[in-house]
């Protein structure tokens, strides 16, 4: 599903540049549940953004669903994102003037689906994250955990192949963290590839595979206890 070879990424800082990813090789197959760990500043978000086509890499190859990602213009990237990818951000990134339902329905609008149909499907996904009754509330009327569940519903509504989550529980307390992780596990059980960044060991343990980053390189890549149990 995701294949990365010798990936490099630098950020220009003034006249210098900051070399963040220094040759990453990573292969994630369809249906995997992978977490990335690493200290702050190790390049986790950078990697995820490149995978999510929100940013571009400098060197190396990236294949998404077998397609080489190279010289992609914004229009093509938008189509691929809409078709293959769902995003969950640490800061939720809901549109503040839209209701929960409208937020969830938005990716379907960009898919070109008729309003009635997309609202119906969006409602189904809201029920799925147990927020059915909150459909017509604005984001600022929801708690952090609720907002993140709306964001997850929004990420899922297009039935993407890969769900990318950048510290989805970073802003949540432990009980809501658990409910969000349970949701991600359910999604994975349904066959979706889930790729999540975290710096919490408890969160990482609930995934099936942990990739550890340090200074822009992968230092370890192993299955977790759950991962081993499932594969055996």
């Amino acid at each position, binding site marked *: 599903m995701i294949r990365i070879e010798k990936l490099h990424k630098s950020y220009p800082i003034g006249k210098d540049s900051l070399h963040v990813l220094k040759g990453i090789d990573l292969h994630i197959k369809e249906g995997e549940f992978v977490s990335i760990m690493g200290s702050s500043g190790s390049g986790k978000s950078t990697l995820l*953004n490149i995978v*999510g086509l*929100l*940013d*571009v890499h400098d060197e190396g190859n990236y294949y998404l669903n077998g397609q080489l990602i190279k010289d992609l213009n*914004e*229009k093509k*990237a*938008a*189509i691929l*994102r*809409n*078709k293959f990818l769902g*995003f969950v*951000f640490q800061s939720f*990134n*809901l*549109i503040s*003037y*839209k209701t929960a339902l*409208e937020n969830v329905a*938005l*990716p379907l*609008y*960009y*898919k070109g689906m008729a*309003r009635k149909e997309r609202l119906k499907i969006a409602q189904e996904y809201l029920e799925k994250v147990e927020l059915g009754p909150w459909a017509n509330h604005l984001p600022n009327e929801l708690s952090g955990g609720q907002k993140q569940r709306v964001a997850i519903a*929004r990420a899922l509504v*297009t039935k993407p192949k890969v769900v990318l989550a950048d510290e989805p529980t970073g802003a949540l307390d432990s009980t809501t963290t658990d409910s969000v992780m349970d949701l991600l596990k359910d999604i994975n059980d349904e066959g979706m590839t889930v790729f999540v960044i975290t710096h919490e060991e408890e969160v990482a343990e609930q995934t099936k595979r942990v990739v550890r980053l340090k200074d822009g390189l992968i230092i370890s890549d192993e299955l977790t206890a759950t991962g081993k149990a499932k594969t055996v």
Partner: protein
Amino acid sequence: MFDLDRWREIFQSINKNRLRSVMSGFTVAFAILLFTLLFGVANGLGNFFKGAFADDAQNAMFVRVWKTSKPYKGLQTGRRVQLKNKDYDYIADEYENKIQYKSSRIYKNFTIKYKNEASSYSVMAVNPDHQYLEKTIINEGRYLNERDLKAKSKVIVIGRLIKKDLFGEKPALGKRVNVNGSSFLIIGIFSDDGGDNEERKAFIPLSTSQAMYGNNDYISQIALGYNPNLSTDAAIAFGNQMERDLRKKLNIHPDDQSALSVRNMAEANKFVGTVMLALFFIITFIGSGTLIAGIIGISNIMIFVIKERTKEFGIRKALGAKPSSIVGMVVQESVLITTIAGYVGLTIGTYILSLIGNSLEEKYFIKDPSVSSEIVIGATFVLIVSGLIAGYLPAKRAANIKPIEALRAD
């Protein structure tokens, strides 16, 4: 092309961000309001200038004579010049192609009497064409015609105010009045835009006057309407040439303004034209200045608005929005706001102008200030285009920011 979902997105964005929308709308509305008022007032000034010469026909020319002020060919200064029918015929013949209307004039002051009411009025003996030259408006009956002239009929066309003086509210048409001792039949009653003086006049046939009072072929003035196909400059040249010809014919020094002169509306027209042109440049300058200020205003606000929405655009792009859809959304919103706001400004402006009406004519020479529909359409078009540009440029830039940068914005 009509995309209901897109409009829904736009209305939601406008509605949920009302302050922002009202702010950008206000700038445009204000600019257009100023623009409308300015145009209207300038138009009003123009109307006043045009109106100041509206009493007579736009193409009128008058040949006037008085006493010579220069000796010529052994003739003395102070000689009285007299126009006669043959001069009128000469002009009519010589300049046939250049003349639309022609009439002689004899000025008289007569007492007009009806029953016990009597008063002195200025009575003009004229030809039928005179109606068009003086812009006489017939309210009742008719004006003089060729048959009246041929028959030297004793008929009279009286001004609205003479009728009021002599008849009050009673009918006057078909009645006989006593003019300087002879009985005349009232065949018409007229009004005139030139003011009260013009409506205390009466017209009788030229031939009647010449036969009855002096039995000669003298005339006081010749009034002409030059061919409207002539350009202003050609009409002025025509007037000058006629002036030279007549002076020669009547043995007048070529430069003797006092003895014979031609008053030519073409010259006034040229003056009005120049004033209007100057006015036009001033309006265009200030008007486009106001519009440009409005466009800059809306552009600035759009830049600000788009900056504020960068993160939202990033979210939309992460969810699959193409840059074109974001540009389209912003441009459509911007055009909608500018058009509505512009329309509001225009409506308020025209309303204020209609309130002003003619109230400023006396003091400020502004008559019937208004904006023409071409200006309205033109301004609306400029607005839509400016909304398009104001929205397009910053939106295009915003839509091409990498989504990750847009998402980081706050």
